[in-house]
């Protein structure tokens, strides 16, 4: 085993990569699920090992094919991306455990193995984006994860899933193309694609137009992929019409990985001093972030479909994360990373719970789920836990996020931001309460008389995810320690 450890960065990506074609060859849904689950669990174990090793021993570098950087492709793991790898792979595994019953209901018969093939390919892409130390390699994995997620969304039961997938395809392609143009310009100016090498070469030419343009293209492209307001229009439909498992997985991970790349490019490659000192990135991120907090929450209040409501809430939450990034302080980056983690937990739990409801009543509309609180008590418990966390009630993970965010804002002397954060949290209270009210206090609809609790295979992972929201609201050691360490590395703009 000991001789495997140096190869962990490669295995992190290539285990799921190998599993994807195996799922396709398996041909049967059950077999494909076992392969996908095995690969995803292995990826989680790898991510845990990498997180442990980087936190204690420092940065790990891996040379693909034995070609030395900057010529070859280098995989680099520090605490920042180990944190993201851990989040992505563990959420993927939890949602996979949850998936079989919901796939049986929502995916056309004979297509289950394709679902798992695409799912594990999407995981490969997201892990690859997070782990690579090569700017072009980011684009390649971005496309792997995006293309597979278009296919996954299109597998949703309603016909609208096809338009949602197409809309996301168009927007996602524009985002990825912008990113690629930016990377191309950087390559033109520096002759290198290796991130560490880019970092040393950019300062000499940082005021040249191509580098400025590259910075703009990369920022906008990544903001589009991260669904930052006003570039979020693809997100509500994509999350609302995707199969339940896909909504849970993507809402918890996909936009977060783009935000990580944004952090990596602004802090490590271009450097905080350049992005926030020479260039006005502070305002460029702050204004859309604040608008997202309000526009997202406000739109969420008026949604009749709860999956859409949660999707709009995601837009608002991405606003909080971007707000924290825009502060460009150690505290801000810590808050951003903590909220990336905690928001992943919230949305995974809530979308999984929506999948449980959909499994029983074939709808996620608020009118259809009136009074279900008595019939599906455990699912409702998960929704309440996730909802409280979303609000930021003490003893939930969401509170920790808000706490660090408010502290970071105060540290930057932006007290008015604290007021805005509190106000937008009030809006979250409105839409979460609307859901709770419908579930517990409305007259049960006669159509749902025979509805019982969701099957255990779905309920257990949902409750575990909901429980994680409580657990990480009380025991914050792991995420906070990792986020603080990662923020320190990012702020230092350390060369790998």
């Amino acid at each position: 085993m000991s001789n495997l450890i140096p190869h962990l960065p490669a295995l992190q990506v290539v285990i799921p990569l190998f599993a994807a074609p195996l799922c396709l060859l398996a041909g049967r849904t059950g077999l494909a699920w076992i392969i996908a689950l095995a690969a995803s669990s292995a990826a989680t174990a790898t991510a845990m090992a990498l997180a442990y090793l980087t936190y204690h021993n420092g940065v790990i570098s891996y040379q693909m094919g034995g070609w030395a950087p900057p010529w070859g492709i280098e995989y680099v793991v520090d605490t920042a991306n180990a944190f993201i790898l851990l989040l992505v792979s563990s959420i993927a595994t939890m949602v996979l455990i949850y998936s079989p019953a919901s796939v049986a209901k929502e995916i056309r018969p004979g297509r289950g193995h394709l679902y798992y093939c695409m799912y594990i390919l999407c995981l490969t892409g997201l892990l690859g984006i997070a782990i690579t130390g090569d700017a072009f390699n980011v684009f390649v994995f971005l496309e792997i994860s995006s293309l597979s997620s278009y296919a996954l969304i299109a597998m949703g039961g309603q016909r609208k899933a096809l338009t949602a997938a197409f809309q996301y395809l168009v927007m996602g392609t524009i985002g990825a193309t912008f990113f690629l143009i930016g990377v191309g310009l950087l390559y033109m100016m520096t002759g290198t694609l290796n991130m560490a090498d880019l970092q040393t070469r950019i300062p000499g030419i940082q005021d040249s137009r191509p580098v400025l343009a590259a910075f703009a293209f990369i920022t906008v492209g990544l903001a589009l992929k991260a669904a930052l307001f006003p570039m979020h229009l693809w997100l509500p439909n994509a999350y609302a019409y995707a199969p339940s498992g896909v909504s849970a997985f993507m809402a918890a991970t996909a936009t977060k990985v783009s935000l990580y790349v944004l952090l990596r490019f602004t802090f490590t490659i271009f450097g905080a001093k350049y992005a926030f000192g020479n260039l006005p990135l502070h305002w460029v991120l702050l204004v859309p972030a604040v608008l997202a907090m309000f526009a997202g929450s406000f739109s969420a209040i008026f949604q009749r479909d709860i999956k859409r409501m949660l999707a709009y809430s995601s837009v608002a939450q991405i606003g909080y994360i971007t707000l924290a990034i825009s502060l460009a302080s150690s505290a801000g980056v810590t808050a951003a990373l903590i909220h990336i983690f905690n928001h992943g937990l919230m949305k995974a739990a809530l979308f999984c719970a929506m999948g449980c409801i959909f499994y029983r009543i074939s709808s996620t509309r608020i009118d259809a789920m009136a009074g279900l609180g008595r019939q599906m008590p455990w699912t409702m418990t998960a929704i309440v836990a996730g909802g409280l966390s979303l609000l930021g009630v003490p003893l939930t993970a969401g509170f920790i996020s808000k706490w660090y965010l408010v502290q970071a804002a105060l540290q930057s002397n932006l007290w008015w931001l604290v007021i805005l954060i509190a106000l937008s949290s009030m809006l979250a209270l409105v839409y979460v309460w609307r859901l709770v009210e419908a579930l517990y206090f409305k007259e049960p609809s006669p159509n749902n008389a025979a509805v019982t609790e969701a099957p255990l295979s779905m309920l257990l992972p949902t409750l575990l995810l909901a429980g994680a929201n409580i657990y990480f609201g009380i025991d914050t050691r792991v995420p906070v320690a990792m986020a603080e360490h990662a923020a320190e590395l990012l702020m230092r703009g350390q060369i790998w």
Partner: protein
Amino acid sequence: MRHHRVLRIISKLLIPFIMLFALYVQFHGDFGPGGGFQAGVIMASAFILYGLIFGLENARKVAPPAVVTKLVAAGVLIYAGTGYMGLFKGANFLDYGALSKDPVAGQHLGIMIIEFGVGTTVAAAMITIFFLFAGRDR
């Protein structure tokens, strides 16, 4: 297409050469311009031409969709499997130098196998896309 004798005969004449050219681009890719992507598309174009001229039914007999789908996966497995061979030989992932005693011969062998995997997947994927679009109305 039964009446288009010219098209049918010319296609029949061309298809073997298209395939031969695909193989040339595939296996000469390490010395000249070419490689798996280009070769895969050229190979697929032979099947697509056959499908256009002789009908979808016949094309499906030559390249059964079930087999083609499996080939899409097989190509990726060849690629990743070659990468794993490097690991098993104690080198890094995708380090073909370890595939043979002589690193140069190993690199040569490695890129050949990898590109063959790429070619397989690209050709099979192109044929699958053609089948899906051509058979859309059924």
